[in-house]
Protein backbone atom coordinates (compact mmCIF):
# COMPACT_ATOMS: atom_id res chain seq x y z
CA UNK A 1 0.00 0.00 0.00
CA UNK A 2 1.51 3.35 -0.97
CA UNK A 3 1.83 6.13 1.58
CA UNK A 4 -0.63 8.27 -0.35
CA UNK A 5 -3.22 5.48 -0.29
CA UNK A 6 -2.61 4.93 3.42
CA UNK A 7 -3.02 8.64 4.11
CA UNK A 8 -6.30 8.69 2.19
CA UNK A 9 -7.53 5.69 4.16
CA UNK A 10 -6.73 7.41 7.44
CA UNK A 11 -8.49 10.59 6.26
CA UNK A 12 -11.57 8.51 5.39
CA UNK A 13 -11.34 6.84 8.81
CA UNK A 14 -11.33 10.16 10.65
CA UNK A 15 -14.19 11.55 8.57
CA UNK A 16 -16.20 8.38 9.11
CA UNK A 17 -15.47 8.55 12.85
CA UNK A 18 -16.86 12.07 13.02
CA UNK A 19 -19.96 11.13 11.02
CA UNK A 20 -20.70 8.01 13.04
CA UNK A 21 -20.08 9.82 16.35
CA UNK A 22 -22.57 12.51 15.37
CA UNK A 23 -25.10 10.01 14.09
CA UNK A 24 -24.84 7.85 17.21
CA UNK A 25 -25.15 10.91 19.42
CA UNK A 26 -28.18 12.16 17.49
CA UNK A 27 -29.98 8.84 17.49
CA UNK A 28 -29.11 8.36 21.16
CA UNK A 29 -30.65 11.72 21.98
CA UNK A 30 -33.79 10.86 19.98
CA UNK A 31 -34.20 7.54 21.77
CA UNK A 32 -33.42 9.09 25.14
CA UNK A 33 -36.07 11.77 24.71
CA UNK A 34 -38.72 9.56 23.08
CA UNK A 35 -38.47 6.30 25.05
CA UNK A 36 -36.22 6.64 28.08
CA UNK A 37 -37.37 9.80 29.86
CA UNK A 38 -34.25 11.86 29.04
CA UNK A 39 -31.80 9.54 30.75
CA UNK A 40 -28.12 9.73 29.85
CA UNK A 41 -27.37 6.09 29.11
CA UNK A 42 -29.07 5.87 25.68
CA UNK A 43 -26.98 8.84 24.53
CA UNK A 44 -23.77 7.21 25.76
CA UNK A 45 -24.83 3.87 24.27
CA UNK A 46 -25.62 5.44 20.88
CA UNK A 47 -22.33 7.31 20.82
CA UNK A 48 -20.50 4.12 21.70
CA UNK A 49 -22.30 2.23 18.92
CA UNK A 50 -21.33 4.94 16.43
CA UNK A 51 -17.68 4.88 17.47
CA UNK A 52 -17.69 1.07 17.32
CA UNK A 53 -19.09 1.11 13.77
CA UNK A 54 -16.45 3.63 12.74
CA UNK A 55 -13.70 1.47 14.28
CA UNK A 56 -14.97 -1.61 12.46
CA UNK A 57 -15.18 0.22 9.12
CA UNK A 58 -11.69 1.60 9.62
CA UNK A 59 -10.33 -1.85 10.44
CA UNK A 60 -11.90 -3.38 7.31
CA UNK A 61 -10.67 -0.52 5.14
CA UNK A 62 -7.08 -0.79 6.39
CA UNK A 63 -7.07 -4.58 6.09
CA UNK A 64 -8.71 -4.67 2.63
CA UNK A 65 -5.37 -4.20 0.89
CA UNK A 66 -4.07 -7.50 2.29
CA UNK A 67 -7.26 -9.58 2.00
CA UNK A 68 -7.62 -11.77 -1.10
CA UNK A 69 -10.74 -10.77 -2.93
CA UNK A 70 -12.34 -13.01 -5.47
CA UNK A 71 -14.69 -11.89 -8.15
CA UNK A 72 -17.38 -14.27 -9.31
CA UNK A 73 -18.07 -13.99 -13.03
CA UNK A 74 -21.68 -13.19 -13.70
CA UNK A 75 -23.56 -15.91 -15.50
CA UNK A 76 -24.55 -14.65 -18.90
Amino acid sequence: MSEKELGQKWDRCLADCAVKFGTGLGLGIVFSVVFFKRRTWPIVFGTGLGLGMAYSNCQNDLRSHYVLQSKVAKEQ
Partner: protein
Amino acid sequence: MAAKILPVVKLATKVTIAGGAIYVAYDSGLLGDGKEGSVTLGRAKAAIPPAVEEWVKYFGFELPATPKIEFSPLDAWNSGVQKSIHALSIAPSTVSDYTKQGLQYVKDLTK
Protein backbone atom coordinates in the same frame (compact mmCIF):
# COMPACT_ATOMS: atom_id res chain seq x y z
CA MET B 1 -62.68 3.90 24.62
CA ALA B 2 -60.47 6.96 24.04
CA ALA B 3 -58.56 6.29 27.27
CA LYS B 4 -57.67 2.83 26.00
CA ILE B 5 -56.57 3.99 22.56
CA LEU B 6 -54.44 6.92 23.76
CA PRO B 7 -51.46 4.90 25.12
CA VAL B 8 -51.41 2.89 21.89
CA VAL B 9 -51.44 6.08 19.83
CA LYS B 10 -48.64 7.54 21.99
CA LEU B 11 -46.53 4.40 21.55
CA ALA B 12 -47.19 4.34 17.81
CA THR B 13 -46.13 8.01 17.53
CA LYS B 14 -42.91 7.36 19.48
CA VAL B 15 -42.08 4.30 17.37
CA THR B 16 -42.74 6.32 14.19
CA ILE B 17 -40.45 9.15 15.31
CA ALA B 18 -37.63 6.80 16.37
CA GLY B 19 -38.02 4.60 13.30
CA GLY B 20 -38.11 7.65 11.05
CA ALA B 21 -34.89 8.97 12.59
CA ILE B 22 -33.16 5.62 12.03
CA TYR B 23 -34.47 5.44 8.44
CA VAL B 24 -33.27 8.98 7.65
CA ALA B 25 -29.84 8.14 9.05
CA TYR B 26 -29.69 4.92 7.02
CA ASP B 27 -31.01 6.49 3.83
CA SER B 28 -28.51 9.36 3.85
CA GLY B 29 -25.61 6.92 4.14
CA LEU B 30 -24.63 7.86 7.70
CA LEU B 31 -24.63 4.24 8.86
CA GLY B 32 -22.80 2.81 5.87
CA ASP B 33 -19.23 2.32 4.76
CA GLY B 34 -16.35 4.68 5.46
CA LYS B 35 -16.44 5.97 1.90
CA GLU B 36 -20.14 6.83 2.14
CA GLY B 37 -19.47 8.53 5.46
CA SER B 38 -16.82 10.86 4.07
CA VAL B 39 -19.04 11.64 1.04
CA THR B 40 -21.91 12.52 3.40
CA LEU B 41 -19.59 14.71 5.48
CA GLY B 42 -18.52 16.57 2.34
CA ARG B 43 -22.15 17.08 1.31
CA ALA B 44 -23.05 18.32 4.79
CA LYS B 45 -20.13 20.80 4.79
CA ALA B 46 -21.27 22.13 1.40
CA ALA B 47 -24.91 22.36 2.51
CA ILE B 48 -24.39 24.18 5.84
CA PRO B 49 -23.48 27.74 4.67
CA PRO B 50 -26.53 28.14 2.35
CA ALA B 51 -28.78 26.67 5.05
CA VAL B 52 -27.38 29.10 7.66
CA GLU B 53 -27.90 32.01 5.25
CA GLU B 54 -31.52 31.00 4.65
CA TRP B 55 -32.25 30.77 8.38
CA VAL B 56 -30.61 34.16 8.97
CA LYS B 57 -32.78 35.74 6.26
CA TYR B 58 -35.87 34.07 7.74
CA PHE B 59 -35.19 35.37 11.24
CA GLY B 60 -34.03 38.74 9.97
CA PHE B 61 -30.83 39.30 11.92
CA GLU B 62 -27.26 39.30 10.75
CA LEU B 63 -24.75 36.90 12.13
CA PRO B 64 -21.25 38.33 12.66
CA ALA B 65 -18.88 37.24 9.90
CA THR B 66 -16.99 34.10 10.88
CA PRO B 67 -13.28 34.92 11.27
CA LYS B 68 -11.12 33.01 8.83
CA ILE B 69 -8.72 30.96 10.87
CA GLU B 70 -5.61 30.22 8.85
CA PHE B 71 -4.52 27.33 10.98
CA SER B 72 -4.13 23.91 9.50
CA PRO B 73 -4.00 21.14 12.13
CA LEU B 74 -2.53 18.79 9.51
CA ASP B 75 0.39 21.11 8.72
CA ALA B 76 0.96 21.82 12.40
CA TRP B 77 0.99 18.12 13.24
CA ASN B 78 3.28 17.24 10.34
CA SER B 79 5.75 20.00 11.19
CA GLY B 80 5.65 18.94 14.85
CA VAL B 81 6.49 15.35 13.92
CA GLN B 82 9.32 16.44 11.63
CA LYS B 83 10.84 18.76 14.25
CA SER B 84 10.62 16.10 16.98
CA ILE B 85 12.27 13.42 14.87
CA HIS B 86 14.94 15.85 13.68
CA ALA B 87 15.68 16.82 17.29
CA LEU B 88 15.91 13.15 18.27
CA SER B 89 18.27 12.40 15.38
CA ILE B 90 20.70 15.23 16.22
CA ALA B 91 20.41 14.72 20.01
CA PRO B 92 23.51 12.47 20.46
CA SER B 93 25.83 14.81 18.54
CA THR B 94 24.38 17.88 20.27
CA VAL B 95 24.84 16.31 23.70
CA SER B 96 28.43 15.34 22.91
CA ASP B 97 29.19 18.87 21.65
CA TYR B 98 27.76 20.44 24.80
CA THR B 99 29.67 17.95 26.96
CA LYS B 100 32.94 18.80 25.20
CA GLN B 101 32.25 22.51 25.58
CA GLY B 102 31.48 22.03 29.28
CA LEU B 103 34.64 20.01 29.87
CA GLN B 104 36.70 22.59 27.98
CA TYR B 105 35.17 25.37 30.11
CA VAL B 106 36.03 23.49 33.31
CA LYS B 107 39.59 22.84 32.07
CA ASP B 108 39.96 26.53 31.26
CA LEU B 109 38.76 27.41 34.76
CA THR B 110 41.32 25.08 36.40
CA LYS B 111 44.27 26.48 34.37
